[in-house]
């Protein structure tokens, strides 16, 4: 790491970027109100600023501090304690998807032999690694890779490929898949041992001692952010919901990419306050909310806008999602007295790392808590772990808690597999069926 690079980074962070972002804010014209939706969230402009700052800073981090590329389910708290700048390839791929760049960038990976059937987050990221294509200017090449296979095995294959491409080390946290509860203690002990080993590896890599006090601070911050995020999601229990899950998909970015940093906490404090205020005043994200829905699986990033409109046209409001809850459900397990064991439980026990019986119970619980009338199951073509089993989960939701659902075949970022017309037909039929059931009337009271 060079002193000059550090100096440049500080200059950009403390002086140049704040000025540039302030200028940009001043120049931004507000959009005319859209009668389909309630007033836009004020926090969205803060979100844009924070994420723009994150990516802008990233391009100056190289050389100033070690840069790690991290999977979304990895315990980033360890890296923060060592002062790494962290980049989330999944988040970046989602961003590319939202800008409809998924196919163009993943084509770079496909040209190198990566099958079009593989996870499109991985393809986009590898495509970026091979070509440098990105909508955010540039991303710093990683010095280290940090991967936990708690969300899927795919991330391990993907990060192995990155490790070879960049010729850099991969720190892996192997988190055994949990079937029932019988072997949990042994699995968590294995994860805890690996976390301790990772500390030694990181000390060697970063050439500095582990700062436990800093680590605990980061952990505490991470826990607070996860609780705040949980609070944000809970406001959607209110009827009418003050924002939709489509909004939440976007506002999820800081908890994925910036947890453990003060900026993340501050952001969610503001968002929570705004949502509570909206809920108090009965401000609806979708005026005339009629149907409350559960969303399963990752967002269809390239179609968020059109889907939000289509849902709103039918008074259908997605109010809860398994995906967004993943970053809130385990906050209570972060026990600072026993941080390594707590991290092992928190990250080793996320719902994607548990069997489908757990997923079914999770869906049922969320359906009840958020008083939903139906569910939309996004079968993401290139995400197997999240999607295999959904056809039978649909059946199971019909039995308990007795709600109808529709399976939407799509993908996270690859719009080549998407047919908007087909999705519209399918969803409209589903909304009509919901109308036919006569549920979701305004007399139903949700509670926040």
């Amino acid at each position, binding site marked *: 790491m060079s002193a000059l690079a550090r100096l440049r980074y500080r200059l950009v962070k403390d002086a140049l970027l704040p000025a540039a972002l302030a200028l940009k804010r001043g120049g931004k014209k507000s959009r005319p109100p859209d009668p389909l939706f309630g007033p836009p969230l004020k926090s969205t402009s803060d979100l844009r600023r924070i994420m723009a700052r994150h990516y802008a800073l990233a391009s100056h981090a190289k050389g100033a501090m070690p840069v790690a590329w991290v999977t979304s389910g990895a315990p980033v708290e360890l890296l923060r304690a060592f002062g790494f700048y962290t980049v989330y390839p999944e988040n970046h791929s989602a961003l590319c998807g939202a800008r409809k760049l998924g196919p163009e960038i993943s084509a770079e990976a496909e040209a*190198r*032999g*990566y*099958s079009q*059937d*593989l*996870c499109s987050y*991985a393809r986009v990221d590898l495509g970026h690694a091979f070509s440098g294509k990105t909508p955010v200017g540039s991303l710093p090449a990683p010095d280290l890779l940090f991967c936990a*296979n708690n969300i*899927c*095995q*795919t991330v*391990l*294959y*993907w990060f*192995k*490929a990155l*490790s*070879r491409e960049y010729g850099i080390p991969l720190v*892996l946290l*192997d988190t*055994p*898949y949990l*079937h029932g509860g*019988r*072997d949990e203690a*042994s*699995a968590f*002990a*294995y994860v805890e*041992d*690996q976390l301790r*080993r990772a500390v030694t590896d990181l000390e060697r890599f970063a050439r500095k001692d582990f700062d436990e006090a800093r680590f605990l601070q980061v952990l505490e911050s991470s826990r607070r952010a996860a609780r705040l995020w949980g609070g944000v999601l809970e406001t959607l229990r209110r009827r009418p919901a003050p924002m939709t899950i489509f909004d939440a998909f976007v506002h999820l970015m800081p908890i994925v990419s910036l947890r453990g940093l003060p900026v993340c906490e501050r952001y969610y404090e503001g968002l929570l306050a705004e949502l509570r205020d909206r809920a108090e005043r009965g401000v609806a994200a979708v005026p005339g909310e009629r149907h409350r829905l559960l969303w399963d699986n990752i967002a269809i990033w390239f179609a968020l806008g059109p889907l939000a409109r289509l849902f709103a046209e039918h008074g259908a409001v997605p109010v809860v999602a398994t995906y967004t809850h993943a970053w809130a459900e385990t906050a209570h397990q972060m026990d600072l007295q026993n941080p390594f064991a707590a991290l092992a439980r928190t990250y080793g026990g996320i719902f994607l790392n548990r*069997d*489908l*019986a757990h997923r*079914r119970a999770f869906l049922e619980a969320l359906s009840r808590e958020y008083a939903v009338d139906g569910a939309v199951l996004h*079968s993401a*073509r*290139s995400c*197997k*772990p999240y*999607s*295999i*089993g959904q*056809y*039978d*989960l649909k*059946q*199971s939701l019909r039995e308990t808690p007795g709600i109808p659902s529709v399976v939407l*075949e799509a993908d996270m970022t690859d719009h080549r597999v998407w047919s908007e017309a087909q999705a519209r037909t399918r969803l409209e039929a589903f909304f009509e069926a919901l109308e036919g059931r006569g549920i979701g009337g305004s007399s139903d009271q949700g509670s926040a």
Partner: protein
Amino acid sequence: MTPPSRRAYALEQKARGRKVAAVFPARYPAELLWARDVCPVEVWDPPAGTQAAQAHLQANVCSVVHRALSLWLSGGTGAADFLLFSHACDSLQNLSTLVPDLLGEGRPCLFFYPPKGRRDDLAEGYLERQLEALSERLDEAAGRPREGALERAVAWGEARTRALNDLYDARAGGRLAASNGEFYAAVRACEYLWPEEAVLRLDAFRTERSGPSASGIPLVFSGVLPQPAGLLPRLDDLGVRIAEDDFIACGRRFVRGSLPHSGEPLPTVARRFLALPPCSTAGSPVPDRLDFLTRLAGRSSARGVVFLALKFCEPELFDVPTLAEGLRSRGIPCLVLEVEMGGDVPAQTLTRLEAFLESLP
């Protein structure tokens, strides 16, 4: 002698008083089952088609999982006393919970998670605990092993590994007069034969077929398994001799060379498990796989490597581009063919294979 069919063999084993387990592979400690007088019958590519599974699985799930579920749905695993799923990938992982948790399988469903991406002391410790946990489940499903049974099973595992090594050595050294199809019929019978019988058959096959291999182009094949089924006779016709393989179902499932030992049986099983050749399903680093393939090519004097990339198989499809590039940079020609399970080989695949053969130096 042609081995019996899996189904007939399973019924025969039951008639002999053994229990039968349907095993959804790839890698699992068979010794623990043998020790309890359980015959594991593996499910890789049953002729069950994929239709029955279509209501439960997306079309882009691999055919191993599609066929496995179709077999289960059609009652094809009916002879099994219990099911064992070994974690290999996201798709098999979800199948392992779909069957008992959402589709209502009432028989015991056992699950085994081998450590991924590491072979260090932590992985070994965890693997030993996993073996203990699996032993407990097996005790419940099939009873405790008799005195000395685990030691005997470990010795059978060793004998089978030796027999496979001998057979593979003979083939790599050009001392086996057998067609590609005959070779894999003999090797793949290990997927269900009782180990003592498997060893007898493997040794008998090697002795009977001892002699110079047919002249032809020696190649290394890599992939999940030798599919589509029509490929092996086509290779014979084209004068291609598979001289070594890196198939998940075959060459990646036995320790090459001498086996590690530990005083106690369970730690021995754990060490041998970790000594298996590098595999995508184990999250092995690409350089390890590259070295293994290079070694296979060298020891069998192969003129190139062919990857049979099974459609929708993530672990394999992620590794293949870097492996192919790595091999080429080491001067080893290679060809990547996307394949599906089934009968005949698509004409386009054959054309690409022929062009590759012609291009070999």
